[in-house]
């Protein structure tokens, strides 16, 4: 290498070193500055257990009585009902949810349209009774009997939900219902085997019985 080239080579190395040092200093300085500007102290408090929120349920169930002899409920058909006849069916209506209910009602629906479901006077009539203990299979109650719904025609019950009075609508509450279904005593004359016009005889209706409760009033608690 010539003397000139040697001098130039040393000069170039010195310059690269200087640039490296300056760049390192700049990066380090910037890091220091940024950490000082954006750092923040935080404090957190959280519970370690509990705090779970669970919603309640509102559930109504319908089942035939389990007492032997009166298990027909709303499933076994009623046949050959005559004017003056009454058929009692026994139903357990339970609030199976965790929320209390309120304002129980009964609504009957049917796709059939004939005298026994349309006529308020001569058509089917329904009365609801409750017993504080299980009904016997002869229809007696050894506990307290109440009238949950006075006699009401199917015609009315299918026109809109009717309020009923149940002993309990509380969560878990059981109502033992006696559903009395009757055809009012009548004075229809059959002449030579011909039934009169607008008769209640020889008719069929398939009824759906719908019991409803609404949720009890919402409450605000402090606890």
């Amino acid at each position, binding site marked *: 290498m010539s003397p000139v080239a040697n001098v130039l080579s040393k000069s170039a190395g010195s310059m690269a070193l200087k640039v490296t040092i300056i760049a390192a200093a700049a990066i380090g300085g910037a890091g220091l500055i940024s950490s000082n500007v954006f750092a923040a102290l935080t404090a957190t408090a959280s519970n370690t257990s509990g705090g779970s929120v669970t919603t309640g349920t509102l559930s109504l169930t319908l089942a035939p009585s389990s007492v032997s002899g009166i298990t027909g409920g709303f499933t076994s058909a009623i046949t050959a009902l005559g004017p003056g006849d009454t058929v*009692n069916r026994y139903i357990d209506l339970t609030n199976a949810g965790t929320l209390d209910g309120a304002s129980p009602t009964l609504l009957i629906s049917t796709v059939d349209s004939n005298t026994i479901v349309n006529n308020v006077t001569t058509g089917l009539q329904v009365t609801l009774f409750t017993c504080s203990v299980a009904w016997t299979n002869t229809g007696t109650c050894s506990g307290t009997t109440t009238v949950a719904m006075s006699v009401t025609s199917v015609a009315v019950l299918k026109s809109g939900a009717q309020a009923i009075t149940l002993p309990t609508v509380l969560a878990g509450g059981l109502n033992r219902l006696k559903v009395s279904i009757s055809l009012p005593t009548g004075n229809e004359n059959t002449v030579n085997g*011909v039934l009169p016009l607008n008769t209640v005889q020889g008719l069929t209706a398939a009824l759906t019985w719908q019991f409803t409760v609404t*949720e009890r009033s919402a409450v605000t608690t402090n606890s």
Partner: protein
Amino acid sequence: MRSNHRSTSLVAAVVGAFILALIQPPTSFATTAIAKNNTLSISSGKLIIFASGFQTFTNPAAIYTTAVINGIPKNFFINNSGSFTSSRFTMKITLPANSNVSAFRRCNINVAFTGTNVCASGSSTTQSITPGSAVTYILPSTPNSFYSFQIVQNKTGVFSVSISASTSFITTAVTHS
């Protein structure tokens, strides 16, 4: 250009409505619980009582009319083919003009006459009769039962029997099931 403005307005309206819907406070609603059965079939029965010349439970839905001959016993039946037990029925018998009835009787329930004043079992019972007028007979009849009657009169001509029954006199029941 006008179309673009309309589109823009429409989009704005939709977006505005969406935003308004989002910021609305929650509305209260009632929670209800329903319990219902499938269906309960309820059928009413029939009160069907009629007269016939031979024993049958097929309802003719008509008055019974036949010919009668002077002095020849005429048998006929009152049938209950309905669903109800009845305690009585009303019968109106029409005879040829100026007829005189010499005998009007019946056998026990579900027993037919086999000859003049001869029942298949037991003995006959004399019944009252007023031709041309309705007479009530207190004779209980269950579904699918009959009474056999026999009449003897002294004219030849047309004879008819009209039967009426009322639901006021059916047997009612209160059942638990």
